[in-house]
C-alpha cells in the first residue's frame, strides 16, 4: 500500500481519538447536571480517588514498584491539610499543594527502601508503612484527633469556601457543594493525567519503564536506579497527598481507621482493573473499584434479607466481582477495550475490501506498549 493511504488512515485514527477525548471531556463536565446528590457525591469520590490512582499508576504501572502503602501517603496529605487549613486557617491555595509536597517528601524518604527490596518484599514493607502510620495517627491527637477522628476544613479560596450548603452561580448555572468539589477534582485529575501522559515520553519516564521491564539491564544501560525509583515514589506520593487532602476535606470528618490496608488494596486493585502502565487505566479502574460499593448498595434493598447486614452482602458481591473480573479479563479494562477494538476492526475489515497486514498492525500514535 502507498504511504499516502497509511498516513490518511493514521490521520483518521488521530481524529477519532480527538473526537473521543472531546466527548469524554464534555461528558465529564456535564455529568453533575445529570446526577442526583447521591450519585454526584459518588462521582466526586471516584474523581478524587482517580487522582491518587493516577499517582500509583506512575509508581506501580510505569516504574513497576508494587506499593501497598498508598493509604499512608493519602493520610499524610490529609493531615497536612488538616493542620494547615484546620488548625492554622490557611487558604486551600496553600494547603492543597502543601499536602502534595509533604506527602512527596515522605515518598522521598521511603523511596530509597525500593533500592534494597524487590517485588513482594517491597509490597509487604509498604504494608508496614500503613500500620506504622496508623499507629502514629492513633497516638498523636494534635494531628489526627486520636482514635475518635477529627474534622477537616472545606476547600477555601479567600472568603469563599466549598462547605456544605455553599453554591456558586456562573452565568445562571448553579453549582452546589458537590459540584464545586467535582469540578476542582476533575481539573486536578486532568492535570495529573496530562502530566503522566507527558512523563511517559520523557527521559525519566522511559527510565521508569526500563526499570519496570528489567531492572538490572536498565542499570547496566545507564539508568540511574536510585533517581528513577525515588522520583517515581515522589510523584506518586505527591498525587496521593493531594488526593488524600481532597478526600478528607470532602468527607469533612475522618477517623484514623479509614487509612487502612484495605484502602491501599483498593488503589492497587483500581490500577490493575484499569490496566497497568497506561494513562487511562487508573481512571477506568477507579470508576469500577470506587463506584462499585455505591452501585451495589443502591441495588440491594436497604432492609436486610433474613437479618444479614447490607454491608456484608455488598462486600461479598464486591469480592466476588473482583475474582470474576480477574479470571475473565486478567489484562484489565484496557485489555477488554483492545479486545473490543480488535473485534470492531475484524467486523470492519470484513465489510471493507481487504487491506494489507502492515496497515492493520500499525500502532496507534502516542500509545505505549503495555
Amino acid at each position: 500500500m502507498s504511504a499516502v493511504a497509511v498516513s490518511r488512515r493514521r490521520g483518521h485514527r488521530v481524529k477519532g481519538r480527538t473526537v473521543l477525548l472531546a466527548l469524554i471531556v464534555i461528558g465529564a463536565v456535564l455529568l453533575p447536571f445529570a446526577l442526583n446528590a447521591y450519585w454526584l457525591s459518588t462521582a466526586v469520590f471516584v474523581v478524587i480517588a482517580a487522582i491518587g490512582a493516577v499517582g500509583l499508576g506512575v509508581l506501580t504501572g510505569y516504574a513497576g514498584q508494587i506499593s501497598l502503602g498508598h493509604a499512608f501517603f493519602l493520610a499524610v496529605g490529609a493531615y497536612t491539610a488538616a493542620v494547615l487549613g484546620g488548625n492554622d486557617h490557611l487558604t486551600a491555595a496553600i494547603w492543597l499543594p502543601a499536602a502534595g509536597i509533604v506527602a512527596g517528601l515522605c515518598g522521598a524518604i521511603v523511596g530509597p527502601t525500593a533500592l534494597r527490596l524487590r517485588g513482594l518484599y517491597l509490597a509487604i514493607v509498604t504494608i508496614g508503612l500503613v500500620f506504622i502510620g496508623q499507629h502514629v495517627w492513633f497516638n498523636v491527637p494534635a494531628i489526627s484527633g486520636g482514635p475518635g477522628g477529627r474534622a477537616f476544613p472545606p476547600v477555601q479560596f479567600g472568603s469563599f469556601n466549598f462547605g456544605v450548603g455553599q453554591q456558586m452561580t456562573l452565568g445562571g448555572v448553579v453549582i452546589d457543594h458537590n459540584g464545586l468539589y467535582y469540578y476542582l477534582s476533575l481539573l486536578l485529575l486532568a492535570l495529573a493525567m496530562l502530566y503522566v501522559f507527558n512523563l511517559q515520553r520523557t527521559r525519566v519516564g522511559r527510565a521508569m519503564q526500563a526499570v519496570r521491564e528489567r531492572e538490572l539491564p536498565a542499570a547496566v544501560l545507564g539508568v540511574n536506579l536510585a533517581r528513577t525509583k525515588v522520583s517515581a515514589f515522589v510523584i506518586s506520593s505527591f498525587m496521593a497527598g493531594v488526593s488524600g487532602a481532597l478526600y478528607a476535606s470532602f468527607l469533612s470528618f475522618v477517623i484514623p481507621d479509614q487509612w487502612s490496608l484495605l484502602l491501599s488494596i483498593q488503589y492497587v486493585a483500581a490500577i490493575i482493573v484499569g490496566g497497568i502502565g497506561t494513562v487511562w487505566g487508573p481512571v477506568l479502574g477507579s470508576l469500577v473499584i470506587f463506584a462499585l460499593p455505591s452501585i451495589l448498595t443502591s441495588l440491594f434493598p436497604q432492609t436486610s434479607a433474613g437479618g444479614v447486614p447490607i454491608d456484608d452482602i455488598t462486600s461479598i458481591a464486591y469480592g466476588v466481582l473482583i475474582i470474576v473480573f480477574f479470571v475473565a479479563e486478567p489484562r484489565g479494562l484496557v485489555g477488554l477495550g483492545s479486545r473490543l477494538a480488535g473485534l470492531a476492526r475484524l467486523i470492519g475489515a470484513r465489510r471493507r475490501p481487504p487491506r494489507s497486514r502492515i496497515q492493520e498492525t500499525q500502532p496507534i500514535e502516542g500509545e505505549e506498549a503495555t
Partner: protein
Amino acid sequence: MTQFLQLFFQGFALGCIYALVALGFTVIYRASQVINFAQGGMLLIGAYLVSVFATGTRLPFGVAVALAVLLLAAGAVSFQMIVLRRVIGQPVFVLVMITIGASIVIDAAIPAIFGGNPRLLGDPWGSSALHVGGVTLNWVRIWAVIVTALILAGFFVFDRFSRYGLAMRATAADEEAAAAVGVPVRRVYALSWAIAGAVAAAGGLFLAGFPNSPNPSLGDVALRAFPAIILGGLDSPLGAVVGGIVIGVVEVLTSGYAPSWLGANFSDIAPYVLMILVLFVRPYGLFGTRPVERL
C-alpha cells in the same frame, strides 16, 4: 524474672501460631510465587468450623478438629482448582488480587452467616492452666506449642523425604524444568493449597483459644504474620518458623516492656518495625535466597 518468663512463654505460644500461618504463606509462595492474602480468611473459617462442629453439632473435640482440617484443605484445593488454575501464567499480581477478593468475601461472609458476636470454641481446655513457680501456663497455649511442633516436624519430614515433598521442592526451584522431568506441577499446586488449608485450620483453632474466641476479626492476625514470612525469607519454610516465633516473642515482650512514649498498643506494630530493621541489613530475610540474575 517471673514476668519475663510469663511473657516469654506467651510470646512463644503466639509465635507458634504465627509460624503455622507463615508456613501456610510460604508453602503457597514456594509453589506459585503468590502471596495468599486469603490466609487470614482461612484461619477464620478454620476457627468457625471447629466451633460449629464442637458446639453446634456436639461432636467430640478431636473429631471436630479433624473434620475442620479436612474440610478446609478440601475447600482450599477446590478454590485453587476452580478459580486460580484458570489464571496460571498471568502476572503474579492478578493471582494476588484474586486471593484478596477471596479474603474480602470470607471476611464479609463469616459475620453474615454467624453474626458479629464471638462464639464458643468448644475446646476442652478453656482457661485451665498449669502453674510452674509463679508462671501460668495455659493448657491451650501448651497444646498450641506441642501441636505446632508436631505439624512442623511432619511437614519437614514430608518435604525432605517423600516423593511429593521432592516434587514441591523441584517445582519451587524451577517450574519448567520440573514439569519437563515429569513432576505433576498442577498436582503440586493443589497439594500446596491443601497443606496451607490444613495448617490454617490448626492455626485458627489455637488462635481462637483462651483468652480469645472465634470472632470475625480473628483473620487480622494473618496481617501480623507478614513480618514473620519476610523476616524468615518468603521461600523458606524454616525461615517461616523462626520468623514466626521471633515475631511472637517480640510482640508480647514489647507489650510488657514498651515505654509509654511509644504510644498505646505499640506491640501491634513492633513486628513491622523489627521487619524493616532486619530488611535493611538482609534484604531477602534471614533465610531467603537471593535471586541470581543474568543479563
